[in-house]
Structure formats: C-alpha cells, structure tokens
C-alpha cells in the first residue's frame, strides 16, 4: 500500500503536458521588473536608484527585520526606475525596473560548484548565512523565507526533514523536471539543509505518477546519499500541502494553528533545495527558477529556466505565443494559482508555472442551491464542512465561523472542484477567514 493522507482529497486530471520537456533557458527579456516583495513578510528596502548600473546577482533590495528576504538583480543593465508594478496578486507594489544590457554577473557569484572544497566542510552557520544572503524563499508557492524555516524556535526538536517533490497541482512540471535533471544537486542541497537543521533523516516525497523522477532520485540516493530516503506516494490532491504531506509520510498530524516543527518535521520544496544548493556552493542568489509554461491550447508547453522579473508574456512567447482563444492566464497551477490581470505581470521567486486556459473553460458555471450532497465534506482535507462555512459566511456569522474552525482552511479549492452545484465555496470561505482574522486581531490585548 502506497502512503497518502487522510481525510479528504480529490483526484483532478493531472494534465502534465510538459513532463517530458527538458528545461531550457529562456532568452533574456529586454527589461525586467523585480518586485521588492516576493516573499511573505516585510518588503525589502531598495539599495539602488534610477540610473544605477547593476550586475546579475547583485543585491538590490535588503531584507528588513526577521521575516523578510533579500532581493537581487537577475540581469545586468541599468535601473530605469523603482515604481509600483502590478503583480500576480493584482495589486501594484514597488519593483526595480531594469533595462537588460548583456549578461554580466556579479564577481561574487561563481557559475560552477566551487571546486576543491568538500561539501561536508561547510559549517551550519555558513549554510544559514548563504541561504539568508541569497534571499531564498519557499518556492512551492508560499514564499516563506527559508532562513526562518531553518531556524526552529528554541525548545523545538527537529527530527526529520521532508523534501516536497509532490507537485500535486495539475499541469505543473517544474519540480518534476528538477528531480530528473538535477537529482545529484538536490541530494547535496538536502544534505546541507539536514546539517542546518541538525537532523539525521530526510525523506523525499514524490507521487507515483512521476516514475522517472522516482527512479532518478532513488538511483541518486543509492549512489550518494546518507540518511535520505525516497518515499513514493499515492496520487491525491492536495498532497503537496505541508500538513497533508507530513501526515502521508509520517502519519503525524500537525495541530491546528501550529507549525510542522511542533511534530518535529520541517518541509522544504525541491525548488527551494536546489536554490539552497546553488547559494551554498556557488554563492548564487535566487535570481532564476524553473517555470512550467503550459495549457492545452499552447502549441509548445515546456519548462523554462527563467530570470526573476521576466514578464509572463516572454514565457508564453517561447511556448508558441498566446492563443487567440485565451480566457485566463494563471500564475501557478489551476487549483491554487492566481489569475493574472495581464501578461505583463512578472515571474517572481514563487512562480512555479504559467497556465493558459482557453476562454471556453475559463468561466465558472452559475451557482445553484446547495443540495447537501456532502461531497465537499468528503473532499475537505482539513475535516471541515465547507457547505456550512459558506452559509455562515454569507450570513456574516463571524463568531460561528470561528467556532466552525474556518481558520483551519488551507484554501486548496477541493470543495469548489467537487461541488455539483458549482457553488463558490472557497470564495466565501476566504472572505469569512479575513473577517474572523480581523475579529481575532481586535481581541488581542494591545
């Protein structure tokens, strides 16, 4: 029996159109816009001004406070301006706009694994410092600063590192390709993270619809790794959710409102591990990532190594251009990704994919009355009652919503996906969550 999580979960069609497409570098765009807030937490403070010349890998935004991340230039060129640019959230936020001139890298960055130094020679402090300096954030989508996740609060005892190679979102294949093409590097990165956390054991979770990635990682583990195990998982969405993945692999349940460290586990995405590998061995900051460009109407879905700040339009161009019947362009996957307001929105550290949906599939069907079929209850991976949360949300029963545990919701969208009445359950639940959040804030003694 393959492992998976309970309760709930759904089986959306995988639609991994680009899983056999090797990652290719995307040609440099003419200009990039590098947002100063590509992470959860305080936006970085800009270190450059209009007219400055910058090199690729140069620090242009400095982390502010404990939960923040450095931002580096992904290209060489001239700073045109620092201005508000609309990002995937739909809001305009400060970004450094750079005209690309050549491809000159900062002298501190070596483009190769530093030779002559045994990998075990890196100390814990060195590893953490390199990750902090490189501005690495969780690349699975949450974009939480990685340095913070690697520093467990005092009193907690990390015992296990889980590497998230699940990629349960339909269509996306960026992590999949990384595991096939960079298996050795991922294992080295995993060893670094294990050292940083002081754990002896790591498990790489991969769903068994990626047999090539499973085989590749297994082979690499046999060759190199110590204390690293590859764990095949039964396909089920949202297995890539931190709590679901921990439940699937270890059987442990992270309590509501608590972090994975409370059950002795830390989870990092494979993309994050690769970025950490590059940061530690090459001093290379997080300025590029693999982005899946996909969609049934695209002529050439693929995986591209793409500089941060590249407009989504450039990626779509490389994949054959925006089809005429396009209805939606999504940053991320179809379950949790964000619909973009235009293709001028740029790739950030957390952008795992660009998904183009034709107009015919882009619109929702009209919502009808709830028929109380219980399918949303069965699908909810957090054991909630989405139908009830929606009703309470519509009637603005904020306290009742809190009692119904609305804050447990991980916004995976399984309820919406499964509802035969096409009810916008998650929309209303999100509104309810924000109202409960406000209520909780007012309650806090200030």
């Amino acid at each position, binding site marked *: 029996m393959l492992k998976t999580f309970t*309760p709930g979960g*759904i089986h*959306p069609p995988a639609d991994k159109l680009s899983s056999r497409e090797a990652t290719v570098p995307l040609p440099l765009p003419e200009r990039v816009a590098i947002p100063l807030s590509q992470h959860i937490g305080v936006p970085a403070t800009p270190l450059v001004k209009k007219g400055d010349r910058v090199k690729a890998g140069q620090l242009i935004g400095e982390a502010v406070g404990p939960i923040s991340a450095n931002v580096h230039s992904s290209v060489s060129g001239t700073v045109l301006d620092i201005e508000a640019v609309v990002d995937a959230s*739909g809001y305009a936020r400060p970004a450094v706009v750079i005209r690309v001139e050549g491809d000159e890298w900062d002298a501190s960055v070596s483009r190769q694994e530093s030779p002559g130094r045994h990998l075990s020679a890196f100390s814990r402090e060195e590893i953490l410092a390199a990750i902090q300096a490189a501005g690495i954030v969780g690349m699975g989508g949450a974009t939480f600063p990685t340095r913070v996740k690697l520093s467990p609060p005092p009193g907690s005892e990390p015992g296990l590192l889980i590497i998230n190679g699940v990629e349960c979102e*339909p269509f996306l294949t960026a992590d999949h390709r990384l595991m096939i093409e960079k298996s050795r590097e991922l294992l080295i990165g995993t060893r670094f993270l294990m050292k940083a956390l002081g754990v002896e054991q790591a498990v790489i979770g991969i769903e068994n619809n990626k047999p090539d990635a499973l085989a590749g990682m297994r082979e690499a583990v046999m060759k190199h790794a110590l204390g690293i195990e590859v764990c095949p998982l039964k396909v089920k969405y949202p297995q890539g959710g931190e*709590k679901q993945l921990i*439940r699937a692999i270890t059987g442990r*349940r992270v*309590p*509501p409102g608590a972090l994975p460290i409370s059950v002795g586990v830390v989870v990092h995405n494979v993309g994050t591990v690769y970025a950490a590998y590059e940061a530690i061995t090459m001093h290379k900051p997080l300025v590029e990532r693999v982005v899946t460009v996909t969609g049934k109407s695209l002529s050439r879905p693929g995986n591209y190594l793409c500089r941060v700040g590249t407009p989504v339009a450039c990626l779509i161009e490389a994949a054959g251009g*925006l089809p005429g019947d396009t*209805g*939606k*362009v*999504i940053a991320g996957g*179809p*379950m949790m*990704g*964000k*619909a*973009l*307001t*235009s*293709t001028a929105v740029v790739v950030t550290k957390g952008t795992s994919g660009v*998904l183009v949906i034709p107009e015919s*599939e*882009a*619109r*929702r*069907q009209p919502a*009808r*009355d*709830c*028929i*109380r*079929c*219980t399918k949303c*209850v*069965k699908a*909810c*991976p*957090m*054991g*909630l*009652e989405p*139908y*009830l949360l929606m009703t309470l949300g519509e009637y603005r029963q904020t306290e009742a919503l809190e009692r119904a*545990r609305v804050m*447990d919701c991980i*916004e995976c*969208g399984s309820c*919406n*996906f*499964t*509802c*035969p*009445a*096409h009810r916008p359950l*998650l*929309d209303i639940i999100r509104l309810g969550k924000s109202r409960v959040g406000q209520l909780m804030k007012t309650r806090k003694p200030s």
Partner: protein
Amino acid sequence: MNKLIISPSPHVHGGDSIERNMYGVLVALLPALLCSILFFGWGALYVTIAAVASAMLFEYAIQRYLLKQPATIDDGSAVITGVLLAFNLPSTIPLWLVMLGALVAIGIGKMSFGGLGNNIFNPALVGRVFLLISFPVQMTTWPVPRGFETTDAVTGPTPLVFVKQALREHKPFVEVFSPAGGGRDLLDLGTGSGIGGSLGEIAAFALLLGFAYLLIKRVITWHIPVSIFLAIALFSGILHWIDPAYAGPLFHLLSGGVMLGAIFMATDYVTSPMSPRGMWIYGTGIGALTIIIRNFGAYPEGVSFAILIMNAFTPLINKYCKPKRFA
C-alpha cells in the same frame, strides 16, 4: 489583446453536476422499474408515467407562474420524486390519486420550502404519507403480481400483514408466514414473485442492484443504507430472540419498503445528515423506528414514517455530528 478573465482559485472544476447525480439515481431505479412492470403489468408503467409527468408539470407550473423563477425541471430531481412516489403506490391506484400525490409531494414537500436543496422532508414520502392517511383504502389495496396475464387484478395482503397476525394469534411467525399458512417463501421476497405490494417494494434484489450502481458511481455512500439494514437486523433479531412470534431479521429486511426506503429514500441528499457519524445515527434511528412501527404501531409498514421522522432530526444531527478535525 482581449481582456483576461479574473477569478479566484480554483480555476478548474471536476465536472460533477446535480444532473449527473440525479440521473445516476434514475439509472439505479431502472432494474426495479423493469421488475415492477414485469410483475404488475402495464399498470405499473402507467402509474410511474403519471407520477413523473405530474411531478414535472407541477414543479414547472409552480416555478413559472407562482414563484416567477426559471424552471429547473431538467435537473432530474422532479423525475426522481415522481418515480419514487410511484414506487410507493399500488399499481391499481386511480391515476387522479397519483396526480394528487405528486402535487402534494412537489408543492408542499418541495417547493413550499424553496425547491431543491431547501426541503426538510423527502418530497416523495410527503406525497405518499398524505395519500396513505387520506385514502387508506385505495392505498392499501395491493394487487398480487400476475404480470401481463390477466386483466382482472387479484388483491392480496402484503407480507407485512402477517407480522401483526402472528402477534395477535401469538404463534411463531415462521408458522404463520409459510406457504401452508397463506404466506410465502422468504426467497420470494427477494425476487418479488407472487408478493403483493407497491411498485417498488416487491423486488429486493433489483433494488440492491441499483444500490451497487449508486456506490460504483459514487452518487451515495454506503453509510445510510447499511446502518438501516444493521439496525433493522439488530432490533428485529432481539425481538425474535425474545419471542419467535416476532418476525426475524431476514423477513423484515426483505419485505415491505426497507430496500426502497434505505437505498433510495433515506439517502436523499437534501434531507439526510452530512457527516458519516450523523448518517449512522440517522440510519439507526430509521431502522429502530421501522421495527417499532411494524410490530407495535397501527400501520403494517413503518419505513415511510421512520424516514420522515428522522428527516426532522437531520438538522439537529448535523449540528452535533461534526466531521473529524484534521489533527
């Protein structure tokens, strides 16, 4: 460039629909419908057609002219109400009574609450119980199935009548309900051959076939039917063990409306609980009430009343039976 569509995630849908589930139930009802036509002849088909047509017509008329809202008769739920109502009627019932039952089922049972999704009681059962109470003679004149052989219907008692007879005479039930005593073989209950009853309650095996289909198509889960079966077996088993004058579990399971009620009526989405734990309570309640009414009540059959009573408890059950929280 044309404007992009913006909406919150998720951006895909699983493709399930109200129609898929409703028509799934209808497909599952087909074997039983075929059986009832085979056993009761064309009368069964006429009753079914009359019930379905009038249920759809009344729903359309109420939505269109009374509520002034778009009609949703194509969602399949009115068709199900019609078929289920017909399955609860004898095949010889006058068609005007069928239409009256459909009016009560749709008008009072469903539309007065706001239509599909908002009703508290199972509409088909509201219609049936209304007819049963208002027209007890017509509703309890059960033709004995003779297929297409004869035009003269012969009426006979439903097997459940023997339950009270055995208790009255205080003889072991197996003696009273035996081919010698005017009853039947237990196997006949399963296949429906020679058993008097309403359209849909005479062939337990055909209904079980529909149950399997519903499970495979994931239209319903097993919790409610299985908990009803177990409760009926348990409570009738206890009574039978105390005194053999009470009918045993197998008889109670295979006779009357248990299969139809447990598989198709109690599992109605709208009027049944939402969590597995709630479904167990609901199903156990239906089973217990059925056995109580059958053995101690005024009516020979109690499934309809049991389901309606537990329908009333569903909101309460939903309030206290929450799904297990993650962690």
